[in-house]
């Protein structure tokens, strides 16, 4: 511990003050990514069911949504929402303005819409891959559509979606770095401030790259454990 403090005291850039900035950035990044994934995931479930349905009136609109949000850069979506909310007539006079004046909620909305689009497609693939026999068996038991969804299709679809979903989680973590563009002090935002303060691009950005690397491997490790537990029956023996 003493050695660490001595090291910090010798160091010009990584003083306790800048490390605190990084810590604040880490908290913001984790909040932003976690909230986006949870809300986006919840929205994606009904959308995926609609997208997988045979009724074109249900599946087509969802297809348009996912196509547009997966086909355009997240940065463009973020700019549209960030600059767009200020244009809603009279929003400055309502309580919503308190929420949307900062950049956090516009960024959160953009991330939620983006990750929901990708997650919808992942879940749809998993739902459509449900073995026919399982559905027939459920029907033979006299299960209604809703019960079949809840008890048979969705539980196994979620398991099947895990490998693809882990990619989406990492994608979201990396994509969240663009939040720093709209004045949010996330991890990269903190790094940019420290870069500007000391004009030291290598320490500032390499340090933050290491934090992202650790987060990425942490997430991969968690998903590997999850796969081992939930998809153990699919492993080659």
């Amino acid at each position: 511990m003493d050695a660490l403090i001595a090291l910090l005291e010798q160091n010009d850039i990584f003083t306790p003050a800048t490390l605190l900035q990084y810590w604040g950035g880490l908290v913001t990044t984790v909040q932003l990514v976690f909230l986006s994934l949870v809300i986006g995931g919840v929205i994606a479930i009904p959308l995926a069911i609609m997208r997988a349905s045979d009724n074109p009136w249900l599946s087509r609109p969802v297809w348009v949504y996912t196509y547009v949000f997966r086909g355009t850069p997240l940065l463009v979506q973020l700019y549209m929402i960030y600059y767009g909310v200020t244009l809603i007539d009279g929003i400055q006079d309502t309580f919503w303005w308190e929420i949307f004046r900062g950049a956090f909620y516009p960024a959160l909305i953009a991330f939620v819409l983006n990750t929901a689009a990708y997650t919808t497609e992942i879940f749809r693939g998993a739902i459509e891959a449900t073995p026919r026999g399982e559905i027939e068996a459920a029907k033979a038991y006299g299960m209604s559509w809703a019960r079949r969804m809840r008890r048979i299709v969705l539980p196994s679809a979620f398991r099947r979606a895990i490998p693809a979903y882990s990619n989406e989680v990492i994608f979201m973590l990396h994509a969240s770095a663009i939040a720093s563009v709209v004045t949010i002090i996330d991890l990269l935002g903190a790094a940019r401030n420290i870069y500007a303060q000391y004009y030291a691009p290598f320490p500032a950005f390499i340090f933050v790259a290491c934090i992202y690397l650790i987060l990425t491997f942490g997430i991969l490790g968690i998903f590997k454990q999850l796969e081992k537990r939930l998809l153990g029956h699919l492993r080659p023996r």
Partner: protein
Amino acid sequence: MFDFEGYGPSIFGGAIITLELAVFSLVLAVFLGLVGAWGKMSGNRFAKFVATFYTTLIRGVPDLVWMLLLFFGGQIALNTVIDYFNYDLGYNLPYPQFNQFAAGVVTIGFIFGAYMSETFRGAFMAVENGQIEAGKAYGMSGWKVFSRIMFPQMMRHAIPGIANNWQVLLKTTALVSIIGLADMVRLASEAAKSTGSPFKFFIPVAIVYLAIAALSDIIFKLLNNKYSAGVVKGGS
């Protein structure tokens, strides 16, 4: 809707820059991907280590971090190197400016090179070993085996992956607007800020991205047909 308040031509120019950036990055990424795939599959332990290190490091860190590191750090690194040549070795080299376009191409090329090397590695492994042995038995050199046997057959397996990477790469080019390159997104956001109507500029930009994506889908389908000549699909 199609009144761009005079910003139309400049945003169109930005779209061209976006495309140029994407194409140059793709070329670099394919080159690095081939080198990376070779490294990963080679028997040389050092090459294998370097290639694995490269792909792991690139894929574990956000694109934007790489871009800022290279853009802000690149100039300093370049100046340091040239300082060394000029003062310590007595040369008189000029100091080149590290521009945003080059930084963008290098960063995006490097990032997608890592993804491409995974794509190519999988594709190379899908080429039957017997094909390579047959080539060697004909007395072909290593390069000839690569260019006449491996590459044409590997491409069939690689094209879906390349198409996927290209679609992601295209969207990643939007990030260069952050380091100041006047691409489509940068110009649209400047126009949006000064006119106060973001949707008027961002919706057309989004449509251009979708159009490029749809067009490249068609091109990749044609390429896929070209490289799949003579392949009989199951079910047909």
